[in-house]
C-alpha cells in the first residue's frame, strides 16, 4: 500500500481512502482519490458540484462501494462493510432527522439499533443533547426546531453512538449566514472533543478554512491537492487549485528558478516565487498566482510597476478592491488600504508583496 499524500502515518484509528475510483456508467465520479484522516483530525473535502465530493463521502460511509481502491480504518479493510456495521456517525446535508420521532428518540435511535434498553438509551440521549446545548429539547417535535437546532440534534445523534469516525455532508449549507459564523466555531470545538477522524464535505472554502485542519480539493473526480489551508492558498500545486482557492489572477510567466519574469506591456517584473510540494524545479510553461493583497497601487511614474486604468472600484470594509486593466486582456484585482484612486484613473500596479506561487499550466 502506498502512503496517501498528506497522510499522517502511524496514526492508529485513522481513516484512509486509497486509490478510490467510482464510475456510474461512462461517468467517472471519483477518479483514483487517496487521503487519510487521523484521530482527532478534521479534514474538509472541498469541490464544486459534480466534483465527486459527496460520492467520496458516501464511499467513506459505506453507502457506495468503490469500483477499485480501499477504505481502511486503523489499518483494517472496511471497503465492503455496509454502513450499519461501520459504526460511523454521519450528519446529512438536510440532517435526515426522523420526522415522526421526538428529538430524544431521534438521538437514541442508534442505541436502539444496538439493543440498548430504553431507560439507558434515553439517558444517554439526554447527555448527548446536553453536550450540544439542547438539554431541554428532548420531548420536542423535529418540526418545531430551527435549522441550527436541527443541526445540533443531528450531531448529537451521530455522536451518541460513540462513532469510530464522523462524516458530515455540507453541515453548514442550510444555515443562515449569521448562524453559520457561530456554528463554524462550535462545530470545530465539538468535533475536536470527540477525538475521532472527522471528514466533512463542503463547497464553501470559507467553511473549510474555518473548521478543518486540512483540505482535500477535488475537481471532476480527481484529487487536486491535499494539505493545510495555507498550503492550498500559498503553495498551490496547479493552476486549478490556485484559481479555486482564494481570489487572484493567474498570469503567464518565465520560470527563472527562484524568481519569475512577468511581462505586461512595456514593463517586465522580476518577482520572487514559491513552489508547491509537487511543482517541478523548472517549468517550461509557468504561471504566477497574483493575489489582490500581493499587489500595490502606485503612481504611474513608479518604475517597478505595470501600468493600467482602473475599471471598477469596490468598497470592501477594511480595504478597497480595484479592478485594473493592464493590457488588452489582462485584468488584475488590487487590494488597497487608502482607496483614494477613482474609476478611470491611470495607475501603476507594483508586485511588491511576494513571494508569488508558481504553478504549471
Amino acid at each position, binding site marked *: 500500500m502506498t502512503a496517501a499524500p498528506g497522510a499522517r502515518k502511524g496514526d492508529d484509528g485513522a481513516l484512509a481512502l486509497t486509490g478510490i475510483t467510482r464510475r456510474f456508467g461512462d461517468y467517472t465520479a471519483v477518479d483514483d482519490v487517496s487521503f487519510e484522516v487521523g484521530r482527532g483530525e478534521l479534514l474538509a473535502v472541498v469541490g464544486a458540484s459534480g466534483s465527486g465530493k459527496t460520492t467520496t463521502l458516501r464511499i467513506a460511509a459505506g*453507502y457506495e462501494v468503490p469500483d477499485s481502491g480501499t477504505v481502511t480504518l486503523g489499518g483494517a479493510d472496511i471497503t465492503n462493510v*455496509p454502513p450499519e456495521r461501520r459504526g460511523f456517525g454521519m450528519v446529512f446535508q438536510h440532517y435526515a432527522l426522523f420526522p415522526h420521532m421526538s428529538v430524544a428518540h431521534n438521538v437514541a435511535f442508534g442505541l436502539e*439499533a444496538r439493543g440498548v434498553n430504553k431507560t439507558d438509551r434515553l439517558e444517554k440521549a439526554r447527555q448527548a443533547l446536553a453536550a450540544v446545548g439542547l438539554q431541554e429539547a428532548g420531548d420536542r417535535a423535529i418540526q418545531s426546531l430551527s435549522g441550527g437546532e436541527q443541526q445540533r440534534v443531528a450531531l448529537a445523534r451521530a455522536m451518541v453512538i460513540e462513532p469510530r469516525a464522523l462524516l458530515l455532508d455540507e453541515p453548514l449549507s442550510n444555515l443562515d449566514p449569521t448562524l453559520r459564523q457561530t456554528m463554524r466555531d462550535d462545530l470545530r470545538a465539538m468535533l475536536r472533543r470527540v477525538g475521532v477522524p472527522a471528514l466533512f464535505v463542503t463547497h464553501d472554502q470559507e467553511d473549510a478554512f474555518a473548521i478543518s485542519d486540512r483540505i482535500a480539493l477535488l475537481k471532476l473526480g480527481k484529487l487536486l491537492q491535499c494539505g493545510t489551508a495555507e498550503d492550498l492558498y500559498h503553495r498551490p500545486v496547479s493552476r486549478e487549485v490556485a484559481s479555486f482557492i482564494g481570489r487572484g489572477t493567474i498570469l503567464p510567466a518565465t520560470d527563472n528558478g527562484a524568481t519569475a519574469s512577468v511581462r505586461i506591456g512595456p514593463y517586465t517584473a522580476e518577482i520572487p516565487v514559491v513552489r508547491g510540494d509537487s511543482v517541478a524545479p523548472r517549468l517550461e510553461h509557468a504561471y504566477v498566482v497574483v493575489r489582490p493583497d500581493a499587489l500595490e497601487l502606485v503612481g504611474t511614474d513608479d518604475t517597478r510597476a505595470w501600468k493600467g486604468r482602473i475599471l471598477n472600484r469596490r468598497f470592501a470594509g477594511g480595504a478597497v478592491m480595484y479592478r485594473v486593466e493592464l493590457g488588452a486582456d489582462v485584468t488584475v484585482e488590487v487590494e488597497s488600504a487608502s482607496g483614494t484612486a477613482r474609476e478611470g484613473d491611470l495607475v501603476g500596479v507594483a508586485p511588491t508583496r511576494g513571494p508569488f506561487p508558481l504553478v504549471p499550466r
Partner: protein
Amino acid sequence: MIAVPVMLLLLWTVVFPNAAVIVGSFENGLEHWREFAASPADREALRTSLVISIASVFASLAIGIPLAFLLGRFEFPGRRLLRAVATLPAALPPLVGVIAFLFLYGESGVITRTFQSALGLGEAPWRLQGVSAIVFVHAYTMYVYVFLFVSAGLERFDATLDEAASGLGASTWQRLRRVTLPLLMPAVAGSSLLVFMNALGSFSAPYIFGGGLRVLSTQILASKINGAMGLAYVETTVLALSAIAGLLLFRWIDRKRKYTLASKGGRTRRVIQSRRAQILTAFAAALIVITLVLPHLMVILVSFARDGVWTTQVLPPEYTLENYRRLFSEPQLWRPITNSVSMALIATAANLVVCFLAAYLIVFRKFSGRRLLELLVALPWAIPATAIALGLAATFNQNDLLSGRVLLVGTFWILPLAYFIRDIPLVASAVEGSLRQMDPSLEDAARGLGASWMLTMRRVILPAARPGLVAGGLLAAVTAVGEFVASVVLYTHANRPISMEILAQLRALAFGTAAAYSVLLILLVLAMTLAARSFEERIA
C-alpha cells in the same frame, strides 16, 4: 432481494391471466376473431361501449365543470351545503347507485310515478332504458371526478394571471376562453380519462338498464354463461385493447401540453350581488342538492318498505323493520355480509403487504426491473374489471403446477384474488405518494446509525408510508366490500358477496331487502372511513 418475489407474484396474478385470455382468443387460430367480426351483436356492443363512454365523458364534463366554477368562484346562500354533498355520489357503491336510480326514475320509480299522476298519463312518461339511461347514471356517479379535478385546478389557479389578462383588456368571456380554460386542460383531460375508463368498464348500469342493449362487458358475461369461452376471450381482448387505446390517446393529448400550474391560488370568491341572481342560484343549488341526495334517501326509504306490497303506488305503502331483522337473523341472508367483509379484509391485507413492498422498491431501489415493476403495478388500472375477472376464470380453473395454474375458480379464494388485483394500482400509488414525500436520506441515516433492514423498515419506512397505507387500504376495502363487476363473473353460491345478493333480491322483486343490503353497505363504507380517520388521528 425482495424485488424478485414481488415481481413474480405480480407477473403471476396480473400478467398471466390477461395473457391467457389473449392466447385463448387464438386457440382455434383466427376462428374466434372471425366469429367476433361476423357477429352483428358484437359489433354493436363495441360501438355502443365506445358511444356510452364518450357520451359519459361529455355528460360528466357538462355537470362537473360548471359546478366546480360555481362552488369555486362564487359565494351564495347554500354554497357550503352544496359543497358538502357534491361528492356524495362517489360514496355510493356502483350497484347501489343503479338501484337507487331504478327506485327513483325507473318505470315504477317515485319520480316517474309522480309525473305520471300529475300529468294524468296512462303509462310512464319515460323509460329508464338504453344508452341515455346508462349515460344518465354514469353522469351522476362519475361527474365527481371532473368536479374534484377541476376544483383542485381552480384552487391552484394563479389569480394574477386573470388580473393580468383583464389588465390587458380581455373581457370576461375572453379570459375564460383564452386563459382559464386552457390552464385547466390538464384537470379536464385527467378527469375525462378517469370517466372514460370507468364508463368503458362499467357493468352494473348496462346490466340493469340495458334492456336489449349490448355492451362489451355484458357480452363477455353472456358468452361465458353460454359456454362460448373462445368468443368471450376475443371480446375481453377487444375491451382491454379499447381501454388501453383510450389511455394512450389521453396521454398523447396530455403530452402536447408544455406548461404546469405551479402557483398557489389565493383568490376570494365573488359574492353574488343582485337579488334576482341570488334567488336563482340558491334555487338552483337547492335543486342540485336534492338531486344528489335523493338516491341515498330513496335507498334508505325503500329499505323500510315491506317486500311485495309496493306495486302501483307512488311511494311504498307499508313500512317495517322486518327487512333488517331478517338480514341479521336468517343465516342465508347474513352470509353475504360476512362473505363480503372477510373477502374485502383479506384482499386489503394482501394489497397492503404487496403494494407496500412494490412502492418501497419503486421509490427507493434502483434496479433493472424497476420500470417493469411500475408497469405491473399500474396495469390493472388500464384493464376493465370484467376483463380481469375473465382472465382469472380462464387461468385459475385447474390444478397444473407446471403451467402455474391453481384451481381457484369455484372456491372462496377467487374473489379475494380478484379484489386484490383490482386494488393494486390504488394502494400502490397511495403508498408511493407517501414514500415520495420522505427524505431518502432517512433510510441512509438509519442504516448509518447501525439499524438492520428490519428495524429500518419498522421504525423509518413504515411510519413514512403510513398515511398512504391507511388511505389506500381504506379505498381498497371500500371498493372490495361493494365490488360487483368482477364478482358477477366469478362468484359461487358459497362466497356470494353483498352485491350479488342485492341483485338476487332485486330479481325476486324483494326491493325492501335489496335496499336494506344497500343501506348496510353504505354503513359499512361509512364505518370503515370513520375507523381509518380515527386511526390516523390517534397516531398523528
